[in-house]
Every structure is written in C-alpha cells, then in structure tokens.
C-alpha cells in the first residue's frame, strides 16, 4: 500500500498540518523531582500560546522541551512534524537553527559583538552571515540607529529588541519567549509586545511565551496554566 493512502499516516499528516506542536504524556524528571508531569498538549500552527504559572511550575521546562533545548524523560514530542526524541544533540541544534527563534528574559547577547553582529551570529549557525539582512532585521525592530552599539551600550528594552531581531532573522516557524518582558518596565513591555504582534502578523510564526504577567499573557490567543508540572487550566483569549 502506498504511504499516501495509509489511513493512519494520512491522519497523522493531516494532524501535523494543523498542529505544529503535539505532546503525548510528555514528562521531564530531574532526578527524583518531576518538573513536568505527563502532559498532552496540541498547539496549532500560527497560534500564540501563553504559558503561565508560579516559579517551579514547569513553564520553562515545557518551553525548553518544545524548543529542543532539553530532552523529555518520557512521552512523545512532535514539533513541526519532527520527532524530537529521535534527534541526537547535534540534530537538535540543527532543528533549533532551522525551526526555532528564542527570546530570553536575560537577553543573552554576546557582549563583544555589536547589535548587528549579534544578529549575524544566528545567521552564521543557520547558513551564511549577511550584514544587509541583519541590518534590515534590526531596522524592523526599530534599532536602525543602534547597529554598531554593543549590548553594554544599549538599554534593557533595546537589548530585548536585538534579541527579537536575532530570533526572527532565520524566519523561524516557532518563536519561543522565556519571560521576554520580565526585566522590562511597563512602557518597554508594551513596545516589545506590540513589536512581536506586528512581526507575527507578517511572519505568521507560532508563539509559545512563558510569562508571569497576566497582562502579557493576554496578548496571546490561548493561555495554559501549569502548577507543579501539571496543566491545571486553559483559557482561550480570542
């Protein structure tokens, strides 16, 4: 039988087209501590999912798992049709550069590189560094005037925008945000969130954003609440 007509595979393929992320019994243990208890979660392509919960609730663990930064202890994890459990460490790295853009709370910019060079670093690991493209990405986030500044010469909000430019430079299908506004004041938070909204409208990537902030979570389409590694509540915003 041809694989195209195999009902099981067809159903799986159709599901893939709808859901960019699918987890079944996804679990992560750190020694005796269960950071994420068996979790079944589907995230449709293009959705903006906010993940909320207290410290230690498993939010970042979930984000690291779907971003291919960490490996589950049990369960299955499909991202963009890829079984992440089947990939080795370098395979996961390649998956991240092809598929994922990450925005960190601490920005994590390379201190000795300028804003444009920090963006080019992501291009280097993806394919070839292209300064013109990197400049354009920074212009899109409103940092056209700060291209040659190093992270130490930028404000928190500006550093976060460099981080966003770096995250979107390789046109990822999935954008992960680990409390991206956690270190920003209200004005900068709104600016960053509006920027992400605009970029998402243009690029049509899926967003998974971990946050403590109810207001930030409200920018998403759906919010899930984790408590002690368990999905306790789900709320659709629009």
């Amino acid at each position: 039988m041809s694989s195209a007509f195999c009902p099981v595979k067809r159903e799986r393929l159709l599901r893939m087209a709808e859901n960019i992320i699918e987890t079944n019994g996804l679990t992560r243990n750190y020694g005796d501590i269960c950071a994420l208890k068996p979790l079944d979660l589907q995230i449709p392509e293009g959705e903006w999912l906010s993940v909320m919960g207290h410290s230690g609730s498993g939010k970042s663990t979930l984000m690291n798992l779907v971003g291919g930064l960490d490996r589950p202890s049990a369960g299955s994890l499909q991202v963009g049709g890829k079984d992440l459990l089947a990939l080795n460490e370098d395979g996961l790295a390649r998956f991240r550069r092809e598929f994922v853009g990450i925005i960190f709370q601490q920005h994590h910019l390379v201190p000795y590189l300028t804003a444009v060079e920090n963006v080019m670093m992501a291009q280097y690991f993806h394919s070839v560094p292209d300064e013109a493209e990197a400049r354009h990405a920074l212009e899109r986030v409103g940092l056209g005037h700060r291209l040659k500044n190093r992270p130490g010469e930028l404000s928190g909000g500006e550093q976060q925008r460099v981080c966003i430019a770096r995250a979107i430079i390789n046109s990822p299908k999935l954008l992960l945000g680990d409390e991206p506004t956690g270190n920003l004041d209200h004005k900068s938070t709104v600016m960053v969130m509006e920027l992400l909204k605009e970029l998402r409208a243009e690029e049509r990537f899926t967003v998974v954003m971990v946050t403590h902030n109810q207001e930030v979570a409200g920018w998403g389409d759906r919010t899930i609440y984790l408590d002690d590694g368990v999905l306790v509540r789900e709320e659709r915003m629009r």
Partner: protein
Amino acid sequence: MHRRRWLIHVVLRALSHRKGRTVLLLAVLAMASSLATALGIVSYSMEKRVAEEVRKYGANLIIVPDSARLDVGSGGLNFGVISEPTYLQQRQVEDALAKSALKAERSFHLRGALHHKDADIMVEGVNFSDVRRLFPWWQLTGNWPTAGEVVVGKDLADRLKLKAGDIMECAGKAQTMRLRISGIVSSGGEEDGLLFLALSDLQRALGLEGQLSLIRLMVTAGGETLKKSAASLQMLLPTAKVNEVRQTARTSEGLLAKVKLLMLMVTAVVLISAGSSVAGTMSTTVLERSKEIGLMKAIGGTRWEVMLIFCGEAAMLGVLGGVAGYLFGSVIAQFITRTVFAASAEFVPWFLFVSLGISLFLALLGSLGPMVSVFKLDPVRSLRGE
C-alpha cells in the same frame, strides 16, 4: 560575509574583548616558544660551531697500510717486531671512498726520505690545497708552494739553516730534484721536522707512483655514524687499517650530547609549565564564558561548531605567540651565544615553523580540557548560570 571570514572576525573580537587574558596567554605562549626557539637556535649554532672546532683538531679517521709484521728472535729471546714499509694504492683508496659515499674531507700523504747534503731528511708528499683546507691552523711564513717548490718545517729549517727562496737539491731512489723553498711552516707538532712537497713529485722521486702511506679523513659526523663509516671503509680496504681517532670523536660527541640534553631538559620544563599555564587560563575563560557557549548552542550551534570558535581562538593565540616567540627567541639566542659562548648565533628562518608548531601545540593541547567542557556544556543549565 563568508563563513570563514566571519569566524576569524568573531575570534578576533573575542580575543580583543578580553585583552588582559589574551595578553597573558600570548605572553605565556611567546615565552615558551621563544625559549624553545632560542635554545634550539643556540643548540643548532653550537652544533655547527663545535663541528667546526672539531675540524680544527684534524682528521677523525686515519687509513694506513696494514704493514707486514715480523717477529725477530732467536731461541727464547725476542728482539721485537720489524715491519717492512708498505703502501696503499691511491686508485684503490679513491674507489673505496667513492663506493662508501662517505661525506669527508680527505688528504693523501706519502712519507719517505730524500738525500740532501750527505744526510737523509724526512719528507712528506701532500696536495697543498687539501692541507690548507684540513689543517687551517698551520702557520706559514712565506707562500704556499707552486710547481717545483716546497715548504720546510720550522725545526728542520732551523737545523739546516734554510730560508724561503733557498734552492735544495734532493735525491730519491728514482729521481733527483732541484726544489725552491717557498715558505717555512709550523704546526707545533711533528710536521715541524718535515719537508713538504707535492705528492706527485715525491711519488716520482721515490719511484712510488700511485702509492700512499697515509690517508687522513675528516668525516663530518660523530659517534655511531663515524664508527659505521670506519667499518664500511675497512670492508672496502682489506689491506688497510682504518683507525678512528677516538679522542676527537668522543670529545665532539660528548660535548654535543651534553649541550643538546641540557637544551632539551630546559625546553621540556618550560613547555610543561607553559602548557599548564595555558590550560589553567583557558579553563577559567571557558568557565567565565559558559553562558555565551550556552547561547551559541541554544541559537543553533552544534557542539562542533561552537568548539570550532574556541579552537579558532586557541589557534589564533598559538600563531601570534609562535611568531612573537620566533622573534624574541632569535634575539635571546643572539644574547646567549654572545654572552656565554662568545660567538654569534645564526639567523635560522625555518625555526619560525618550529616556534609556530610549539606555540600551536601548546595552545591546542592546553585547550583540550576546556574544549571538552565546551563540547559537553548543556545549553539550558549554562544559560541558567549553573
């Protein structure tokens, strides 16, 4: 931008960002490679100088005919040993030297007696160009001989009251010759009592054409090589005795070996301490940069790609340290040879590659442990600062 250019750019940026640490690592690498280079150049120069000094002692292989020996005695009495003068065929010796492919300076000699004014005087036939090359310490008053001319040893000249410009009439078994004295020679040895004339002239006068009584060889090698050379020549010349002038050989061999051993030991100590220093500094650097490494992995760098950046930094330091080490090393070598050995060291361009090799080796070897840490580092934990 080309990937390789970008990598070099990042490496340079990283190194210039940590100026203090970069300068420290460069200093360690340059110091180690410069000392190794300096000692290498000194050793190399001294080896050449010692070889030249040894040359001044004269030949280190001597070939003489294996003379027929006859015990003389009667009843229980033994009066000693007499030996008949024997000679070696010049052509046979030349063939043997050619076959052995020995790299050696050579000097052919024939000794005999010529009759002069009712007395026999000891004469030696030589090629004066060989003598001048092999025995540069001979002191000559006057000129080296041309055709029909001779030089007289200082003692002989004093005894016979001879001086440069005098004409001597000397008779051999086969021929009588009129010879003009072109100079008086002194070596401080037995040569001072001899008369020296062209080898072919003496061979004709004595009726010993193509015959030799002594061959002196200055082989530019010591130890085992010299022994092997002597053995191979002995095989090719069964009617001769090939003798190694052991004292000279041993002196040069021993001196060179001691100098080299000293240099090797000092170099080893320096390299070990420099390697440890590089390893320590690189480990600290990697530890400090664990978040940066984690970030590179998080944004898609594979373990090998991230490690390549750090290897690039180590290699860049190695190259810069090697070049600096070569330059400093050459200066130090000059200083050591001038102050300790009262000589000047050679400028040896190919030692640049030795210096580069040592510096690169140290930088990469010292970075091996830290590189393994880079390879293994977990991005999530390092970004968390764990």
